[in-house]
């Protein structure tokens, strides 16, 4: 009951004229920033901090919530339209979002992304409203051994991303993992494969790899097909979803909003793992799993729901423990501090008004994101109507700005170009890029958590068997690996039985 009262007060402020105005500004600014590859929620929030300095905290929070969700959604837009995932959370959205857009269904894909983001975010906030203090315990239950198992579970996904040849997928992943080992090793301070270049000591940024392998490689293909036009341009901006499509979205949205939220609750895991796992679990359990990767409705809905569920889940450790679980929430923490709000175990007891104010602003940010963005989809989709030659030049420029905007040096731009060429060559010889990027993202964290665990246990592997949560995840990932196999046999047996 107390929860509802607090929320009501929050809503009252939010539904004032000023409240609505600031959410609107936030959503627009966030979406615009998020659509530029390379600029995601982190930059969007960081650049807004000087703006909100000295503002009324409640209004500022409303605006930040708008920025936060807007930026997350904007990232999906560039993934879907241009195959250019600006943040790691949006990589899984390219798998089906981009093929869908290429089939002339960009509006549909964006609508699916908007609706599933909304559902993921809203279910997340509802869970946050009622279970935040309880879930705070879950958030601190993960130590290095559990994280190691979680990353391992993420990597088992490679088998599902293989596009036919398992060995090629494994090679892709191994090379991706190798690139993740470049830089100073956190456990020892040893520079690895840096060739004494200060440009490499912090490792290669995710964005350089993702924009190269996905966006620039696609640009190469577009150049060769520059005279082709999209097959069906008429309905490109139409966001009309059929009943069947809406029905298809239900399952993934229901499951992934909860799964994504739970992963988001774990500090350090975050939206990337949530969106990948979301995509893969749906692919595994789907009857029509062949459609995944070719513009499947579920393939867009799953990662988007999971991502927004998880970005909401990340507020559990932030608000109830003061622990920022991701880069984005770390910057969010900075923004809250500027507003005079110190999140932590005491926030809920000492400043319930603030606590509920934050949560109310998240509900509203989500709603506004949906009602503001749906009408904009037809216009955003028109990007694809830009003549190919011009579009190609613009995509290249955006990739370069995106990378320059985070690294501020040209070394990373040459690397970007290198990964673009690599990505294209990989396409030529049928090596999938998805396992590469997945291993690149998860590999680094996996290695570190493995070695952290072994340092803690003084070298004994038993640490993974004696911790119940770690063991459970291990068993789950083995089961999920075997699941398609059993499903196959089961279906076969059914067919035989029906045949009889």
């Amino acid at each position, binding site marked *: 009951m107390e929860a509802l009262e607090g929320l009501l007060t929050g809503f009252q402020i939010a539904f004032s004229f000023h409240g609505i105005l600031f959410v609107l500004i936030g959503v627009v600014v966030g979406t615009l920033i998020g659509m530029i590859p390379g600029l995601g929620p982190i930059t969007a929030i960081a650049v807004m901090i000087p703006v909100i300095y000295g503002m009324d905290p409640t209004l500022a929070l409303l605006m930040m919530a708008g920025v936060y969700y807007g930026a997350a959604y904007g990232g999906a837009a560039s993934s879907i339209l241009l195959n250019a995932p600006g943040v790691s959370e949006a990589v899984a959205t390219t798998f089906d979002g981009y093929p869908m857009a290429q089939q002339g269904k960009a509006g549909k894909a964006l609508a699916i992304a908007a609706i599933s983001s909304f559902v993921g975010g809203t279910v997340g906030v509802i869970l946050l409203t009622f279970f935040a203090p309880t879930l705070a315990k879950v958030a601190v239950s993960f130590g290095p*051994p559990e994280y190691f198992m979680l990353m391992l579970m993420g990597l088992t996904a490679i088998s599902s991303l293989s596009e036919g040849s398992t060995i090629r997928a494994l090679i892709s992943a191994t090379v991706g993992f190798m690139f993740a080992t470049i830089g100073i090793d956190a*456990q020892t301070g040893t520079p690895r494969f840096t060739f004494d270049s200060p440009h490499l*000591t912090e490792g290669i940024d995710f964005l350089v790899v993702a924009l190269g392998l996905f966006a620039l490689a696609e640009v190469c293909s577009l150049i060769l097909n520059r005279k082709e036009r999209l097959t069906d341009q008429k309905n490109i901006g139409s966001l009309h979803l059929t009943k069947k499509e809406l029905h298809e979205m239900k399952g993934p949205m229901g499951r992934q909003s909860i799964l994504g939220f739970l992963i988001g609750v774990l*500090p350090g895991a975050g939206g990337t793992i949530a969106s990948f796992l979301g995509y893969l679990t749906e692919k595994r359990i789907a009857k029509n799993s062949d459609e995944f990767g070719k513009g499947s409705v579920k393939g867009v809905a799953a990662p988007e729901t999971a991502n927004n569920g998880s970005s909401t889940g990340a507020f559990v450790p932030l608000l109830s*423990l003061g622990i920022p679980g991701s880069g984005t929430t770390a910057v969010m923490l900075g923004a809250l501090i500027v507003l005079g709000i*110190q999140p*932590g175990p*005491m926030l809920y007891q000492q400043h319930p008004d603030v606590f509920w104010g934050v949560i109310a602003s998240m509900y509203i940010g989500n709603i506004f994101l949906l009602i503001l963005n749906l009408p904009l989809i037809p216009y955003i989709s028109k990007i694809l109507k830009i003549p190919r030659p011009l579009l190609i030049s613009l995509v290249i420029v955006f990739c370069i700005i995106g990378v320059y905007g985070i690294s501020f040096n040209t070394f990373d731009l040459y690397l970007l170009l290198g990964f673009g060429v690599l990505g294209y060559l990989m396409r030529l010889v049928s090596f999938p890029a998805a396992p590469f990027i997945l291993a690149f993202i998860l590999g680094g964290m996996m290695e570190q958590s493995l070695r*952290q665990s072994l340092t803690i246990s003084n070298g004994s592997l038993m640490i993974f068997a004696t911790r119940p949560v770690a063991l459970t995840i291990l068993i789950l990932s083995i089961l999920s690996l075997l699941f398609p196999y059993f499903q196959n046999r089961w279906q076969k047996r059914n067919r035989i039985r029906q045949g009889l």
Partner: protein
Amino acid sequence: MKKMAGALVLTFVLVFTAACSSSSSGSQESDSGEWKPDKPIEIVAPAGPGGGWDTTARMAAKVFEEEGIIQQDIGVINKPGGGGALGWSYIHSKKSPNSLFVSSPPLLLVPLNGQSQYTYEDFTPIANMIADYGAFAVRKDAKWDNLNELFDDMKKDPSSITVIGASSPGSMDHIQFVKVAKKAGVDIKKIKYVSDQDGGALTALLNGSADVYTTGVAETLEQAKAGKIKVLGVTSEERLDGDVVSTFPTAKEQGIDATFVNWRGFFGPPNMDEAALSYYEKKFKELSDSEAWAEIREKYGWKEMYMDHDEYMEFLSKEKDELQKLIDELSLGK
């Protein structure tokens, strides 16, 4: 085809000519004889947006402009990479008195670890502004109630105690712990240190994966208030002011004569001109004394620690010697 190639060549020729005739730069002394920047000032944060260096730079620029301390435009530029090394080499190559940067102990530690060719001696320290201190925390139910008990156990069985921090060996979190532990007589080569850069260090402490958390004072505050952790020691000279913080004992008062300051200040390019240096020194003093800056310090929990150029030079050289010894003993230097 020919026409196109012609246009191409023409464009790039134009661009090239433009590139070669670069505009003149630098500053002049104004009529009154006093040096003043004649171009917008850039403050480089050798890291990405959102971190400590970036926040300090942006807040300083904000107060400089809003309070009218400096009339020129001030832009903050992020030059992330190499743990700061890329930002430092950028400033070093610029050599313009309109380019400043913000820095802290990594300016000493990164070169000592062999990861940057430039150290503070290659630049002109202008003024130090603020300080932060390290804190060592354990779980509420841990068996240790002060640093000495902890260090005694570490001397007996170093492999049973895991110390966790956010940065790699040889960098701040690790070194501040090593510095205090060494003074207490612990064999610093046997300390079991784990680094967690993905934000899991505090949770690892809370759930028992690690035993000691070495970090900044601000990071421990909320958990200590809530009674989930206890801070066994902080690395400041005297107890800090403030609610709860004042209950944190210093290492010094526990008989361990060691301190560690996470100082943060501003630097200029190498061999900065005397006139420009004294101009900036004055401006930073004004900034440090302003009310607006005091408010910002309050908000972020930074302590005041102003040092002018001369004091700063002396301080840095002493710090460097001490850190050098620790790094050498751990044989981390390259």
